């Protein structure tokens, strides 16, 4: 389980994260949402140890990441998989070599077993046909799928995704969302997804944290989003015309139901 207690982070005197505390639900898709510049990516980078918070604690199964010894951190990182915004595949390696890379570095399996595992991961993301292609030869959506395959190669306990849908068309976005959800459930991982795409939130979010200007404004489930009384949260969610119309339609239906009830 991942718990965050009162983390603060500032850059050159500007507060980016302020007293954030949260508990992420194991085996579920936890989403961190917010506007651009709200501190989501900084929060994620603190969670995975790429940035050091100024204060607070980040607990992985009750062990503080910020106080871990070098070898403990190394062990923990092998339990993490990460999908970066730009996929971060290694340019000089083929898709298969990218997926095999973590296995080559840390697995004691022989070459045949490593290859089999990498092919299994690629098949899981439906990308086995592109195994011998270089990242520059595949589309953005395929790159994201390849990055997911690489992230799950070592069977991690925690999956982190930074804006998994950025730069993708709606169909590919949905495919990536479904993949993250399926993988989270199938491999019983704890996923933490940073996004500002509300379609993703409504599709796959089990537990949602809303950040605004570095402050945690709201926390709850996707059903709670539409009925939230938090003004900042509503500003963010209903900035999208579609969600505004869905909410209006929902309100109309409730009013009609109420009238019917009164009529009876």
């Amino acid at each position, binding site marked *: 389980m991942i718990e965050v207690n009162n983390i603060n982070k500032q850059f050159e005197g500007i507060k980016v994260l302020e007293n954030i505390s949260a508990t992420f639900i194991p085996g579920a898709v936890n989403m961190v949402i917010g506007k651009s510049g709200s501190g989501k990516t900084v929060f994620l980078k603190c969670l995975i140890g790429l940035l050091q918070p100024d204060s607070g604690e980040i607990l992985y199964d009750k062990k503080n990441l910020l106080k871990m010894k070098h070898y403990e951190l190394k062990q923990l990182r092998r339990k993490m998989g990460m999908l970066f915004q*730009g996929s971060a*595949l290694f340019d000089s390696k083929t898709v298969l070599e990218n997926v095999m890379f973590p296995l080559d570095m*840390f697995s004691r399996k022989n070459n045949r077993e490593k290859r089999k595992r990498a092919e299994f991961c690629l098949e899981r993301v439906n990308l086995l046909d592109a195994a011998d292609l270089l990242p520059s030869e595949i589309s953005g959506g395929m790159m994201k799928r390849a990055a997911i395959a690489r992230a799950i190669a070592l069977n991690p306990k925690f999956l982190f995704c930074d804006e998994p849908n950025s730069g993708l068309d709606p169909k590919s976005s949905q495919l990536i969302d479904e993949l993250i959800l399926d993988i989270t459930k199938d491999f019983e991982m704890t996923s933490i997804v940073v996004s500002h795409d509300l379609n993703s939130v409504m599709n796959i979010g089990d537990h949602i944290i809303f950040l605004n200007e570095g402050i945690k404004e709201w926390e709850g489930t996707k059903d709670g989003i539409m009925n939230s009384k938090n003004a900042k949260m509503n500003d963010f969610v209903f900035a999208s015309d579609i969600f505004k119309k869905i909410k209006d339609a929902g309100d109309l239906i409730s009013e009609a139901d109420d009238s019917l009830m009164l009529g009876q």
Partner: protein
Amino acid sequence: MSLKNNIESVGDYALLLKRVLSKPDRLSEFFKEFIKEVYKLGVSSIWIVVIISFFIGAVIVMQIALNITTPLLPRFTVGAVSREIIILEFSSTIMCLILSGKVGSNIASEIGTMKITEQVDALEIMGVNSANYLILPKVAAFVAYMPVLVIFSMFTGIYGGYLICDVLGTPSVETYVYGIQFYFRSSLVWKSILKSMIFGFIIASVSAYNGYNVQGGALNVGKASTNSVVINSILILLTDLVFTQLTSTPQ
């Protein structure tokens, strides 16, 4: 850049070297990368070394032959002086200045691009020591291959001079060869090789440092690449000065 920034950079460079010079996570992966880098940084540099050394060797001999005209100096002096220049300074120092442009910018831009596209972060998240995985094979490969490049440079430089003597006829080929062999000490070759290996370490590690610390976008990768060439050139010249002073003994 302020003095404080410069001192900080030296400290950062030392800390990066500490991470680079640690034991690789997987030796088999290190050797795989080492072989790739030998080809990419070393073997692919042979052609430029050969072409430049051949022409500069020819020009050195031509200039010396044209300028040493006094009857007080024997003609074989042309060969002897050319040999000293080519072996001691050209094949190591000047060649490394040229290679810092080719190899240094290559290393800085490759690692810089990996940095801004989060490939370095991806390595760190996997628990890989990214500095060690990316930089050590480059440094080791370039330092290990440097003697080969220097020897190629010495041979082609001297051969360039030989051909120019053959074409111009002054000094004659026999006199030139006599001058080349006159009072030859093999220690010159070893000194030159040792010096070039030190320069190789500077080129690979300083360029890698510049690439590894890139932040922002493509513009900064370009800046890092240019900076690495400038800093390498200055460091090579300073090191050459110190090395020459330390290793020179009065004849």
